[in-house]
Each structure stands twice: as structure tokens, then as C-alpha cells.
């Protein structure tokens, strides 16, 4: 009897193990966890795909951002990648492409070329070949609380840099805090600093530094950093910001503590959804008009889906991924989580007014520089963020910033 039971257990165990390896549809990893603002767009898109392709089951798993970075790298290392995976554009995906782990989408793209503009694939094109399916895209916006601005005599967001400074002075004099910035999360500081640098030295010059190997040893960058620090010294920033996270700062802005908040346009849905919140989004004004102009933005498509080279029936999986990406983009746009990287061929009347105004800003733009920490390889981004944190903390000035980055990066 004991032998029989042992045999039975062994058979069950073996069957269980074999079931693990059973070919059961496609697998996908992403970062749209239940608390992620993009969760709904993934769920809705996957539901649509399952309805359209009932024979193709998509087993998807959402993993928290930082854990995901380790998990996907371990999977690449162990040749154990899911068929479809979420990735960030530029250097992050580029590393996997270099290792020949990602399936080229050139053939599959041909069937979607009329819906996905070529320029949206720029950040996931390596050696002229496309490897990524862009989802929604975002830019950095200058969000303004119009009710607070009204208190100091402004009906609209100041259009020029001089007007913005004048407005900030009036706010400080009235005991208001112009800006909130989360010092505990350095990427929030980059939202300000990169916009100020871009509007001082021009988009092309900043893009060359981030993406094309131009030197950090640029006196105009140093001057822009000094402008940022001058704003901090003049009391334009909440002094408590240095020890706050982004959630706190955003909550403060929504509670009317700050007049302005520079952050990603993924916040549009949340801001627009708050009743009685009189908010407007604008572009950061030009600081040096001889080098920069309006229409030069920080941002662009970064959230991406890619197909593993090891994927089952890779060509069909590539087509499936493109279709899925298009749907995630659609639902993300309708939810106000970002702007569409894909052409809008559906009714988008329900999109909130704030997101629509961002779409107008993007439509008028002619240059987008991707967020520095996404554009640069991880090790360089780490050194860059380290120096940005020092700038906000007042540990280095403009000259120190460029000298440190020149030495550390190039």
C-alpha cells in the first residue's frame, strides 16, 4: 500500500512538473501592477485581444518597477524571457538588442505603418531596425493652479520667463510658495532642471549630450544650473520639498499649497478628475531665445513592449504585440494616462480637457528630448542623478555640476 501511494505521489509530481512546461499560449511581463495608473488600459486591451483571438491565451504578470528591472535582466541572462515584455526605450532596450535577445519588428511593422508614425519608433530603433512597440508617451508640463495665480493678479500662466519670475516674486511676497519639488525622488528634480537647461541651451544641444555623446563640459549648462539654484535661493521652492516624496508634493499642489508643479503629463487624468481644481498645463517658457524656442519639450515615447527572440512563433507574436500595444495606447489615452504614440482613429471625445491641451502642445512641438535618466545607460544615469540631487541640495553649483559629469561620464 505504501509503495502504491509513493508511486501515485511520484506520478502526480511528474505530471505537475510536465504541466509547468506545457505550451499554453503567450506569456507577457509588464509593470502595470494593480496600483499603477496604466493597469486599466492593460486590462481593457487584453480583454479586447482575448475576444478577438479566443485561441490565443495571454498569461500576463505585472511586477513592481524596481523588481522588474532585476527580473527581466535575470531572464535575459538565463535565456528564460517571456514572449512579450515591457521595457523602457533607448539604453534599457538597447542593451538587450545588443545581446541579440530581441526580435526585430521590421516585417510586422509594415502592416501597422499607417497607424504608428515612424518618428514614434525613433527611441526603439537600433541600427535602422525597429525593436519596440511604443505605448503612450508623456512630456514634462508646467501645471499651474489658476486660483492661486489669480490671487496675485494673473489670469493665465505667465508666457515668458521674465513674467514667470515676476509672478514668482509676487507669490513669495504674498506668502505663497511658487513651486513644489520632491527632493527625495531625484527624477522629480530632473523635471525642473532638464526643462530649464533645454530652454537655455536648446533642445538639440541637450539631446546631443543625452544621446549623442556630446560633452557635459558646456558653460551654458552651468549657467542654466545656476539659474535653477538662484530660483531655489530666492525662495521659489518649498523648503520642505527636500525631504518629501513625489506623492506628498503632488498632494500639496492639489491641496493648493503651491502655484506651480512641473511633472509628467501622466498626472493629467488625476488633476482633471479632482472637482473644483482649476488647473492648466503649459510649456516652460524660453530662457535664452537665441538658443531655445517654444515647441522644444522634454519627454517622448519611452514605455514600450518588445518581443523576445525566443518567443513562440515570433513573427505572429510580433503582430499580436503591435496590435496589443495599439490598444493599450488607446485605453491609456482615454484614461488620461498619457498621449497616444499611435494615430487616433477612434472617438476620443471623452479625453479630459487637460490631456487634450497637452496634445495641442505636442502637436505644435518640433523637438522632444527624452528624459535624461531614460536616455542614458543605467550607469551613466546613476551618476547624472547623483549630481542632480547635489544641485538641488546646494552641494554643487553649475560649474561643479558640469565638471563632475565631465569627469564621471565622458
Amino acid at each position, binding site marked *: 500500500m505504501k509503495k502504491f501511494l509513493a508511486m501515485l505521489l511520484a506520478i502526480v509530481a511528474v505530471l505537475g512538473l510536465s504541466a509547468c512546461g506545457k505550451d499554453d499560449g503567450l506569456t507577457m511581463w509588464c509593470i502595470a501592477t494593480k496600483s499603477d495608473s496604466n493597469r486599466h488600459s492593460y486590462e481593457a486591451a487584453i480583454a479586447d485581444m482575448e475576444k478577438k483571438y479566443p485561441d490565443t491565451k495571454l498569461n500576463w504578470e505585472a511586477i513592481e518597477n524596481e523588481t522588474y528591472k532585476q527580473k527581466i*535582466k535575470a531572464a535575459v541572462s538565463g535565456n528564460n524571457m517571456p514572449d512579450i515584455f515591457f521595457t523602457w526605450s533607448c539604453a534599457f532596450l538597447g542593451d538587450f538588442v545588443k545581446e541579440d535577445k530581441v526580435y526585430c519588428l521590421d516585417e510586422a511593422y509594415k502592416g501597422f505603418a499607417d497607424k504608428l508614425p515612424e518618428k514614434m519608433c525613433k527611441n526603439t530603433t537600433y541600427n535602422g531596425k525597429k525593436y519596440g512597440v511604443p505605448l503612450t508617451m508623456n512630456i514634462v508640463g508646467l501645471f499651474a493652479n489658476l486660483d492661486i495665480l489669480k490671487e496675485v493678479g494673473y489670469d493665465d500662466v505667465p508666457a515668458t520667463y521674465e513674467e514667470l519670475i515676476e509672478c514668482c516674486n509676487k507669490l513669495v511676497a504674498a506668502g505663497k510658495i511658487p513651486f513644489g519639488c520632491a527632493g527625495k525622488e531625484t527624477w522629480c528634480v530632473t523635471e525642473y532642471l532638464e526643462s530649464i537647461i533645454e530652454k537655455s541651451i536648446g533642445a538639440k544641444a541637450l539631446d546631443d549630450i543625452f544621446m549623442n555623446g556630446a560633452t557635459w563640459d558646456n558653460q551654458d549648462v552651468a549657467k542654466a544650473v545656476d539659474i535653477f539654484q538662484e530660483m531655489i535661493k530666492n525662495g521659489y521652492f518649498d523648503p520642505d520639498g527636500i525631504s518629501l516624496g513625489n506623492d506628498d508634493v503632488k498632494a500639496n499642489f492639489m491641496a493648493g499649497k503651491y502655484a506651480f508643479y512641473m511633472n509628467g503629463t501622466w498626472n493629467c487624468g488625476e488633476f482633471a478628475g479632482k472637482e473644483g481644481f482649476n488647473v492648466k498645463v503649459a510649456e516652460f517658457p524660453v530662457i535664452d531665445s537665441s538658443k531655445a524656442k517654444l515647441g522644444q519639450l522634454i519627454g517622448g515615447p519611452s514605455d514600450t513592449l518588445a518581443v523576445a527572440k525566443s518567443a513562440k512563433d515570433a513573427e505572429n507574436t510580433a503582430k499580436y504585440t503591435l496590435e496589443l500595444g495599439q490598444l493599450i495606447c488607446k485605453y491609456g489615452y482615454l484614461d488620461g494616462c498619457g498621449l497616444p504614440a499611435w494615430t487616433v482613429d477612434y472617438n476620443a471625445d471623452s479625453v479630459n480637457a487637460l490631456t487634450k491641451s497637452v496634445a495641442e502642445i505636442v502637436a505644435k512641438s518640433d523637438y522632444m528630448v527624452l528624459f535624461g535618466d531614460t536616455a542614458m545607460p543605467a550607469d551613466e544615469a*546613476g551618476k547624472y542623478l547623483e549630481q542632480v540631487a547635489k544641485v538641488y541640495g546646494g552641494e554643487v553649483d553649475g560649474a561643479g555640476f558640469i565638471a563632475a559629469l565631465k569627469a564621471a561620464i565622458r
Partner: protein
Amino acid sequence: MFGRGHFSLGRQSIMKRKKLDGITIFLFLLPALVLFIGILAAPLISSVVNSFYQYKGFGSKTWLGWDNYKRLFDKNQIPFWDSVVHAFILAGFSVFLQLPLALGLALLLGRGIKGERFLLSVNFLPVLISTVVIGQLWLKVFHPEGLVNSLLRVVGYLKEGDKNIQWLGDGQGKLLWACFIPMLWQYVGYHMLLMYAGVKSVPPELREAAKIDGATDWQVDRFVVIPSMKQILKVSVIFAVTGSLKSYDLIRIMATLQTKEASVPSTILMDYMTLRGEYGVASAVAVLLILLCFFFAILISAAFKERD
């Protein structure tokens, strides 16, 4: 001849039995050996190997020799030694503040005071609460508009118009203390429970004999109880020191991975592994961390042996 043959057969049988015993011992040890190699030895060896390479966590590796270690020793490149100093400060406070406090509580409760069980549970409660919850709780305490600054305003230390004190990041080291205070507070109960078990294991006859000889409560604790629980004290000191060197979770919640003010070796390790993708540097930190933990565990054991 018969005798020699018999002897030879007997020897063969002993040899065979010894061989069988050896196989049996090996088979019994095998699961533990597999677990030891798979979970401890292999990752350790892999970390040592990776620490000599430039490695992104996947793809090819580039041999660097001692470069990753040299970078750790170069303060201008990686603030590793600052993080070790921070860990030592925490270890110092653990040993000289947290453990005496835990010992005091354990001795007090061990005397069988009224409400012993209740006080034991109350002091042990922070250990049972998730570190994430504790981190969030103390974040509220040290928030610029949180409990500490509010109290300072009530007592008049901060006057109207004064800026809030930035406990969670002013670049002057306050964040380090804001992280250490909850860490020390959380584990007092843990050490107290260990020591309480030690106090309770002292035979009551010894206490009674000392009392009959006229010893006070303090003298009983000093000359009878504490010497009897030397092994537990040793374990507590080892846990406190190695735990300080390995500290991570609360700092991760209250600060960021890239914090310099409150960096400890584990935050440097995770920063270089997850954010910067430099697995070689992260492995070098891991190797040094393991060596430091071993060194201090041996040192503390030797110190207690000496006293024995």
C-alpha cells in the same frame, strides 16, 4: 590457513559495512549538502567571481581584476566607506544603547513583576509589526510638518516664521538619525525576548540561595543572572552587530537607494545592482559585507571566550 581466510573475510565484511555506512551517511547528508551548495556556497562563489568583472547582469563579462574593489576604496567614486562608518555607528548604538536597554527590561520582567506578560507583549509588539508599516509610521513622525517639528513648536524651540527642521534630508546627517532611531526602537523587544528567556532559565534555587545570603535584587542580577546568560548575550551582540552591518529595509523605506546621508553597505549594493546595472560593483560590496560580518562574528565569539 583457515584462520587467515576467516580474518580476511571478517576484514572484508568490516570494510564493506564501513563503505555502506559511508554511503548511508552521505545519502543522509545529501539533501542538506545540496541546499548548502545551492543556496549558500554557489551564490557566494558566483558573487566572488562577478566582483572581478564588469557585468550588467546579463550578456558578456569583462575582466577588471581588482578595479571594482579599488572603486569601493576610492571615496570620490563610491561612498562605500561612509556607508560602512554609518553601519558601525548603528552597531555601536545597538551594542551600547539597545542591548543594555533590552537587558534592563529582561531583568526587570524576569523578577516576576506585576503585569509581566502584558509588558513582555507590549515590548515585543514592534518586532511583529511589518517594517514597511513602521517605516511609514516614523516617516509621519519625522515629516516636516510631523510630530517632532510640531512638538518643537509647542515647546517653543521652533518659533513662528522659523523653517521646519528637515529630519528626512537636509544633507547634514539628520536623516541618518531619523533612520536609526526606529531601527533601535524596533529591535529592543527582539533582544529583550532573547534575554528574557535567558533570565528565566536561571534555576530559582540559585536566586533563592543568593537572597538567603543577603543579596539585593540588583546583586542577584549582577552576580548570578547575568553571568549565567553569557551565551545569550553573545548571540545578542552578534545579531546586533551583524544586523547593523546588513541593515537595509527601514532605510530603504525612509530614505532612497541613492541616499548618501543614511547610506549603509546594502543600499550601495542595491543602488549599483538595480539602478545602475553594475553587478560587478554590487558583488564586490556583497563580498566585503560577508567578510565584515564573519570577521565581527568571530571577533565577538573570541571576546566572549576570553572572558569565559
